[in-house]
């Protein structure tokens, strides 16, 4: 919601947000889906007007709305479905990392969305793995003790 508020100025609606949470209530699954900032973006490859570029200052994959003709080919090209179409303005939109200060990461209270150095992002997964191993080891130890 903070994304849509920031990007539109005054409107809150998930359909105008560049990050969307997909949920399956009965499975207990909630996943935020947002642009991966691919190194070799398929969306850029398929755009007929070269509207998608890598911003030279921020490094973010951005859509130049002046060049965008609203054909939505990029939406088909993205394997993650992170690009959406703004029906009011007739252009495609995606996450541009808010010039390096992403509003969603600031608003997220639980660190689910984090803005961090890409070369250190694997640390989080390794930490999770370590916790799982530690937990399992603890359980095994308890089993051995009893």
């Amino acid at each position: 919601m903070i994304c849509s508020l920031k990007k539109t100025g005054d409107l809150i609606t998930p359909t105008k947000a560049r990050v969307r949470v997909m949920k399956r209530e009965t499975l207990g699954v909630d996943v935020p889906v947002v642009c991966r900032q691919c190194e070799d973006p398929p969306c850029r490859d398929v755009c007929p007007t070269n509207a998608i570029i890598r911003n030279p200052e921020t490094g973010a994959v951005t859509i130049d709305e002046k060049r965008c003709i609203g054909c939505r080919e990029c939406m088909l090209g993205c394997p993650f479905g992170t690009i959406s179409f703004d029906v009011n303005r007739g252009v495609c939109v995606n996450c541009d990392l808010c010039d390096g200060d992403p509003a969603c990461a600031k608003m997220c209270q639980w660190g689910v969305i984090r803005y961090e150095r890409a070369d250190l992002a694997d640390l989080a997964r390794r930490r999770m793995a370590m916790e799982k191993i530690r937990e399992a080891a603890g359980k095994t130890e308890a089993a051995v003790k009893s």
Partner: protein
Amino acid sequence: MYYGWAGTILRVDLSRKQAKKQVLPKELVENFLGGRGFNSKILYDEVKPGTDPLGPENKLIFGAGPCTGTIVPCSGRWTVTAKSPTTDAFGDANAGGHWGAELKWAGYDIIIFEGRAEEPLYLWIDDERVELRDAKHLWGLDVWETTDALKRETGDPNVEVAAIGPAGERLSYPACVVCDYTRGAGKCGMGAVMGSKRLKAIAIRGTRGVRVARPEELVKAVEESINILKTEDQWWFENFSKYGTPIFVMLFQHLGALPTYNWREGWFKDAEDLSGELLYNKYVKKKRACSACVYHCSAYCVVDDGPYAGTVGEGVEYEATGGFGSKMGNRDLASTIAAKTLCDKLGIDLINCTETIGWAMECYEKGILTKEDTEGLDLSWGNHTAILEAIRRIGYREGKLGELFALGSRKAARRIGKGAEYYSITVKGQQMGLVEPRPMWAWGLGFATSTRGGDHLRTQPAPEFMFTPEEAEKFIGTPKISDRFGWEGKGRLVAWCQHIRAINDSLENCKYFFRGSPRLYVEFPAKVLTATTGLNWTYETVMKCGERIYNIEKAFNVREGLGRRDDYLPERFYKEPLSQGPFKGTVMPREKFDLMLGEYYAVRGWDKMTGLQTREKLEELGLKYVADELEKMGRLAKPTSRRKGTKKG
């Protein structure tokens, strides 16, 4: 054009199968805030006294608040209001999830359902497009099946659905409206009212969004409030996020306030088997949240072993782990999860259900209900197999026992006689939330004076045990309210809390955002409301709306014939001291309760003896027409001299 509010009321005539849109009137916006406030005003104006709650003249009103669907923390709530079959007077219910936000994003503040459909219908809202569709193929399905079916039918898995299950279809009083699979708008039999209108569900897709008047101010207010919560209520924030409401099992056990054996006791010897920590460690697989929530208090649980293996449930709350637990002398935690999920699927309110079954269990123990009456069901304390079967019978209104249960414990007790009424723990017919009042006097007063019957959320006087005595003195006027076992100051505390909670329910904020820190209670609503709507609200003007909303609900009840005699707790709390646990011997003597009640009426500017409203108070709130009407009926108090209550803040 409004900011915050969508600006549109959707009025649906189920008899004629027509829907029309109306502009949200300024009068409502300026005086009743939103959500519950709007609903209550409309109910008072449009549902006349003596209306049959399950008849076509009753109206079923769904409302969301100006902050619903925005980034205001914990703002994802909505209210459904109607004349209630359990109280035969005012009723409403509130729930979270994401349905309320979707309603606002579709562009509506309120939906008013009138009349009765000839055949089952569901309402489909797709932004501006509104359709009443045939629901015969959904009638008979449980809530989860209905929700899945509607997502398939509309072709959109993100569609939000609020539905009734078999319980609502069969007009069982414990029936409720469920959204997001597991969020029940439980109280007051709203599910039965919805079923009486043959309305199966409301499915919404909303993309239009909510407009914010002062976005930067709002972001700042939101960040500031979250910061206050995390610094001034650190313990609460951390533990509530982790454990959710199941944390209350042990917390209330320590206060002697954990209802046990149908409210006979406030302490359960096996409480640790039901603790929030055990739930978290053993069954919780993930935490989930409602719209815009900072806590993620909802527990998504999976039972891996034992007789209930395979059970999946979400929103496993204290009313489940305690309600199906200690209240029924049951120490099997997994069974409470199974019970909760069954209630969600059948569309049954936990509080009404647990109370009705708990009542039956005590009657069974005392021989008032025999095995013949229960059709073979062994309703001994702690028999969780029987509990699940009882839920099923409530859901399908099956057999003699199902028929009895479908009336809720008050009417069921009246039907049986033989002293059963003593064990029905209700106020005005509505079952009480799970807090034992004998060691928590403000909660007791709150239950007794709630406008929708026995209900902890109307008041939720958490300040009684969470404010420091210094905060109590500054914000309520006396440190004495920190004494849980005393009567002084409680009238003032309860009235203050009731206004705050009316505001919470009208902005549509979750009350768990307001627990300890007084700054949040006092500063937050006006700040976020101003930033969202662009109108300039202050603490005083917002509290005035809270008081106005409370008074119009009270007036509805007064019109239906309710009076002082209905503002009392069940006899048990005045007569029977607790006999177990650290607060053994505690009781709430009736004379002391009368002192609390008198102080409460005085603070409210109502007649101290009868509890009726005065013209002076109603006119002060801009409700002259209400005063005129009540006077014509002889239900208005004559102005009396009263002590001025100082509501601090």
